[in-house]
């Protein structure tokens, strides 16, 4: 079965520090990849997505992610975090060519940015 692994459950950074959150998935076929963000008390929102083409994807608020097919990875990065980036981040994958449609989520990474 498809699975998504996020390596860090909790990350604490100071403002202006660089961020990289790891994400690996298990399926070897064609996949769509996503990062969602959940700010405190809010619902999940899409941060960025990858379907095809350039493996370096840029999203909102200065976030980017790189799809490395050989490593089954889709790591999220931001050069300089802000206090307002404090949130929980979820990596997700779905398989566009399956008969059903299921998006599988990772367990999430809680990021706390110190002002």
């Amino acid at each position, binding site marked *: 079965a498809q699975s998504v692994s996020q390596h860090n459950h909790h990350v604490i950074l100071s403002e202006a520090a660089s961020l990289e959150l790891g994400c690996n998935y298990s399926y070897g076929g064609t996949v769509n990849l996503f990062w969602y963000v959940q700010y405190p008390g809010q*619902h999940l929102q*899409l941060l960025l997505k990858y379907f095809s083409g350039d493996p370096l994807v840029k999203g909102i608020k200065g976030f980017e992610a790189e799809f490395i097919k050989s490593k089954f990875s889709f790591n999220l990065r931001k050069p300089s975090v802000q206090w307002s980036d404090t949130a929980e981040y979820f990596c997700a994958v779905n398989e*566009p060519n399956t008969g059903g*449609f*299921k*998006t599988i*989520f990772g*367990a*999430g990474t809680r990021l706390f940015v110190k002002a």
Partner: protein
Amino acid sequence: NAGVTQTPKFRILKIGQSMTLQCTQDMNHNYMYWYRQDPGMGLKLIYYSVGAGITDKGEVPNGYNVSRSTTEDFPLRLELAAPSQTSVYFCASSYSAQTMNTEAFFGQGTRLTVV
């Protein structure tokens, strides 16, 4: 722009009680989903629907039922509430999996406590 609307936002149930979580979307999306979010576990898919009249089980369907009589509505039913169903429930919707725009749009969530 209502998007995905869930009600209620909070609910406390006693063991054995039943309730329905309501979900409606105004984006004319074919696909709708119910997830539960437990701390450290990410989101688990309970049920999903690919269109009116069609539903299917996700990863954790036991103890729940759904129906999809219209494109807009996808209620989740708990028949005999158990403490293990204490969680935060999210409804989501997306375009057809046959398109490239498969990102999910989430509701605000329902925090359910079973005591």
